[in-house]
């Protein structure tokens, strides 16, 4: 199996030598892999990744978000219904978000959400035959950072794998930027990123830094951030 890991596989490729690791009988297939009878088929172009125990998935480069259970996403409220909001999270249909799935919300006191608000939420239900459903509370009923994002800011759209890259603990971009600038950021798995900085110049700078980071490795990123901070200090 080693020969496949880390290499690029394309739709239609059959991964014969993927077997559950000895010991556990279980084999977990991530995005891009489907079980077709007794073989495992690739259905997206991507890089095959493996993690113990027996977890396989593809790193694929994609712009369109397809809802997936447990993802934390950023969405924009587009409609208000009787008992739920419709939220655009960038997938094929609008996600639904119940009034009651906010911290401390009851039939009496409804959360204060307006059409156009940006929401940070978790995908509760993601099924190809149903519209996705969001919640803004964890299993304990707490809003662990989720809910309506207030206080201005700026929303940018990126490719999904850039979003994943930023969220990856190995990625130094956030730290590097954090050393120099003071800003708030929220990254959704659906490739939407919310930024809030001290002034527009910084917003633009950071946004560009993020876009630029897509095809950089960590060293390049750090050097880029150094350059950026130098330029910025020149401007301010």
């Amino acid at each position, binding site marked *: 199996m080693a020969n496949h890991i880390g290499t*690029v596989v394309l739709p239609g490729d059959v991964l014969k030598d993927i077997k559950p690791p000895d010991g556990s009988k279980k084999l977990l297939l991530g995005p891009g892999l489907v079980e077709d009878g007794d073989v495992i088929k690739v259905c*997206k172009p991507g890089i095959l990744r493996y993690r113990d125990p027996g977890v396989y998935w593809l790193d*694929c*480069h994609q*712009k369109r978000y397809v809802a997936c259970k447990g993802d934390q996403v950023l969405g924009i409220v587009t409609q208000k219904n009787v008992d739920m909001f419709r939220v655009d999270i960038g997938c*094929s*249909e609008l996600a639904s978000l119940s009034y009651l799935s906010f911290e401390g919300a009851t039939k009496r006191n409804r959360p204060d959400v307006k059409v156009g608000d940006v929401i940070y939420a978790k995908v509760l239900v993601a099924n190809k035959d149903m519209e996705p459903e969001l919640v803004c509370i964890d299993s304990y009923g707490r809003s662990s950072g989720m809910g309506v994002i207030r206080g201005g800011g700026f929303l940018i759209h990126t490719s999904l794998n850039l979003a994943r890259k930023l969220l990856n603990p190995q990625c130094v971009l956030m730290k590097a930027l954090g050393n120099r600038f003071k800003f708030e950021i929220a990254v959704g798995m659906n490739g939407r990123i919310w930024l809030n900085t001290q002034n527009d110049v910084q917003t633009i700078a950071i946004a560009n830094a993020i876009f630029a980071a897509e095809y950089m490795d960590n060293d390049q990123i750090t050097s880029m951030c150094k350059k950026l901070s130098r330029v910025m200090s020149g401007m301010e």
Partner: protein
Amino acid sequence: MAAFTVVKKEDLEAQQKEESVQSLRCITSELGPLTQPDGSAVFTQGDTTALAAVYGPADVKISKELIDRATVEVIYKPKVGLPRPVDRKLERIIKNTLEAAIMALNHPRSLISIVIQETESLGANLACCVNAACMALLDAAVSMNFMVAAVSAAVTDKGEIILDPVSRVEDEARAVLTFVFDSVDKNIVTVITSGQFSQDEYKKCLYLTKQACDNVFSFYKDSLSKKLLKSA
């Protein structure tokens, strides 16, 4: 943007025992030239060029909605003027070809729309469009059962067969055949022919195009590896 170019030199010939006429023209492509669509590609075969853009899975009009599978729509834009019946036929052919490749069952009640702009039609236009569309789908990472590669061949009056003909050859040829193969077991997804030809001429073309389609597939692989490894 994952924008770059891979130029396949005539090393294709090396892989084939045929003489020089039996090779594809040089293939180049650019993945993701457009920023707005979910996936896009420019595909060039010799002087023939097509630009394809993919949107989806996106939301679909109720009138077009299918409850058990994704709606696949192809829009072919000719260089000038409104689409005429001849363009509609091309549209239909490309649509059915891609429908076979796309895993429509994975995205029910959604729309996958492919827009193809005729850029430069100098021989083997249909093949070029199909390949461009396939690359665009790969760029958008739409889930697919297999990839498709199209190759056309011309039968001259003397009965000799020329792979991937240029427009001049096409005009003079007695028949032009375009084949589309799938990447898994190289079965025939699409055959479109024009002009009269005998059965063994058909067989010959099939044999040659089948060999040549491997080049297209390996080209797909190279291009995508470059793109993906870059972003990793």
